[in-house]
């Protein structure tokens, strides 16, 4: 079965393409951009999708997802995580290694890849752990994981505190040309902190995580990237300090890229005010100054991409004392409308926004995704950027509901998500 996407505004930022037109999908690939479609529309084996007034873009790519499987299937599985991604317009997701067992060797990588192939509706690219068991001391089987399909290594969830180990990890990955993806946090400075250290934490009597705990590690990681020449990607930038450090590093040519999460460019630590555990994540929601710096970083390109840090937790786990609740919120199904708000606010153009969610993240992990060239695998999202939506966590495809955005009135509705030429989600 072929698919004809008819009359949409096709935006493919990888080649500055932005035109109203048609796309023909055949045998899982983008076949052509036909102008004369009269015959095609009548053909019995062609499904026609009317896309007039809608945006047709490369399927979105998320570099930061916790799929929780293996080990934490009550929070999310590879199946439900992929469904959640598809509902959010994502066709490729990168999953973090902090599962149980941790993805620190090829057999876990293979398990994830197999599960994703058989049960997942979107493309899944795993990241391997930097150290064995995320112990921060000894290197994981990085080469073998690379051969098994890992597209990078990360210490997300358990930062490597030992600078010498981090240095060696950065050197070692050069053999495979994969990036080190860093959750930059000084765990000693964070201490038992549960939210941003600031006025709100002072009022609430909650232990604070100072922004310095991020800045100090971003600084270290940039220094090590400079020493080793390795491509460093910094996760979920949340502070004015790290935006400054990354900007300066890029100016002097350090190979560093960075991501920001929708919650960090949308919310501040005020969202915690009534001890809402759905506003608890790491790095924490920061001050208004930090939020503005992150937005400015996105605008001027210091922050290359948008990534969700989709971190599902069950209702029971979150309905506890704030100190006891796990860090993290789900993000796949709210990322597009929250990112479109950046366009509405004039921070990004629609093309820049799509770029930060498609070919730019793909480039960081060196995969051929996020483009709509003829011949490419047909991974496509069709969305209506102006259609109003009330976020309803009960409608999530994710297994978890932990969002601070429930009930928010936003704009942007995913109409179709197509992976490898198959419609995997439609409203």
């Amino acid at each position: 079965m072929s698919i004809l996407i008819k009359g949409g505004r096709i935006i493919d930022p990888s080649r500055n393409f932005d035109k109203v037109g048609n796309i023909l999908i055949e045998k899982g690939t983008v076949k052509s951009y036909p102008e004369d479609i009269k015959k095609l529309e009548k053909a019995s084996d062609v499904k026609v999708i009317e896309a007039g007034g809608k945006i047709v873009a490369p399927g979105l790519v998320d570099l930061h997802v916790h799929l929780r499987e293996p080990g934490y299937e009550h929070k999310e599985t590879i199946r439900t995580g992929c469904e959640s991604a598809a509902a959010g317009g994502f066709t490729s997701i990168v999953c973090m290694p902090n599962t149980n067992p941790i993805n620190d060797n090829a057999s876990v990588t293979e398990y994830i890849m197999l599960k994703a192939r058989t049960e997942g509706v979107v493309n899944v690219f795993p990241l391997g752990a930097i150290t064995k068991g995320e112990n921060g001391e000894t290197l994981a089987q990085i080469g073998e994981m690379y051969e098994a399909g890992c597209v990078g290594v990360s210490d997300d969830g358990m930062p490597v505190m030992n600078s010498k180990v981090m240095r060696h990890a950065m050197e070692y990955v050069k053999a495979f040309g994969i990036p080190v993806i860093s959750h930059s946090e000084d765990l000693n400075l964070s201490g038992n902190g549960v939210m941003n250290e600031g006025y709100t934490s002072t009022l609430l009597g909650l232990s604070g995580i100072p922004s310095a705990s991020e800045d100090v590690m971003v600084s270290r990681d940039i220094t090590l990237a400079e020493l080793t020449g390795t491509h460093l990607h910094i996760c979920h930038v949340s502070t004015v300090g790290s935006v400054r450090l990354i900007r300066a590093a890029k100016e002097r040519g350090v190979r560093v890229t960075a991501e920001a999460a929708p919650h960090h460019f949308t919310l501040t630590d005020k969202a915690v005010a009534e001890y809402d555990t759905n506003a608890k994540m790491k790095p924490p929601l920061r001050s208004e100054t930090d939020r503005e710096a992150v937005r400015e970083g996105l605008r001027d390109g210091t922050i290359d991409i948008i990534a969700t840090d989709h971190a599902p937790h069950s209702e029971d786990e979150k309905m506890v004392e704030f100190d006891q609740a796990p860090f993290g919120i789900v993000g796949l199904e709210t990322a597009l409308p929250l990112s479109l708000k950046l366009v509405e606010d004039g921070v990004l153009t629609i093309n820049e926004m799509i770029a930060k969610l498609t070919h730019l993240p793909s480039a960081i992990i060196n995969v051929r995704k996020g483009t709509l060239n003829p011949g490419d695998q047909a991974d496509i999202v069709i969305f209506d950027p102006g259609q109003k939506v009330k976020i309803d966590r009960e409608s999530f495809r994710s297994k978890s509901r932990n969002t601070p955005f429930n009930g928010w009135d936003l704009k942007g509705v995913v109409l179709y998500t197509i992976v490898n030429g198959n419609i995997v989600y439609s409203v």
Partner: protein
Amino acid sequence: MAFERKHILGLQELTAEEITLVLDTAESMKEVSERDVKKVPALRGVTVCNLFFEPSTRTRSSFEIAEKRLSADVLNFTTSQSSVVKGESLLDTARNLEAMGASMIVIRHPMSGAPWLLARTLDSSIINAGDGSHEHPSQGLLDLFTIRQLKGKIEGLKVVIVGDILHSRVARSNIWGFMKLGAEVRVVGPPTLIPKYIENIGVKSYFSLDAAVDGADVVIMLRIQKERQDSEFFPSLREYSRFYGLTREKLKYAAGDVTVMHPGPINRGVELSSDIADGPGSVILEQVSNGIAVRMAMFYLVASARSSS
């Protein structure tokens, strides 16, 4: 005015008028406490549960006496008795108590915000008896009550809070209470225990005790947790006491009729020298009896708000 709150979670949320109403109500409750028959039927048929996740005989007894003087049925749950040790969640524990008939829950908990979780989820009225480093509203109200009785007013007083502001729920409740009623509030302690953002609330922070007590009408000494010494906060109790312990010598900078308060129990010779703890400016024992009256007032007002809604 009528009190319309179903819960008392902190003094931050209360208006000056609401705080004054609690203090005025506590005056009448104090009269009850001075009668031969110290009982009124305000909470007859109401089950109040004291849910304590931290040992605090003094606060719990004070609440319990207040409940009984209002004729409530009292259920006591402390950590060792409750099923929390078995891993039951706070919410499940509280739900079980509600199922047993409790309609008011007094909660003391080591984690900030625990009472908020209950208030958001349960039907019961929640009275915060101290949560983590957040608030201890009954202590704050009691301090206000004691000072108002003694000085005739709160407005315009210079109030100094000394010690571990960072971790102190008493400090936060006192800051809000005294500020809302028009006092000038200062905080003082080692810089490691003074939160960087505390001045945004509207208090002035000091690192020198001499400077902070200058002209003070009220000095509130916080209890220093022994586990804070030998950590990165300060080197030793001896050194703490040398710089932040209150002595007659330091008090001479304060107003002539200065009142010294301490939420207790006192580490004698650390926060306070004994001559001050037992001396004429100290109201430490007076606070105990006032505590019962203030807590009776809290129950009384919350109960009337419940029945009118």
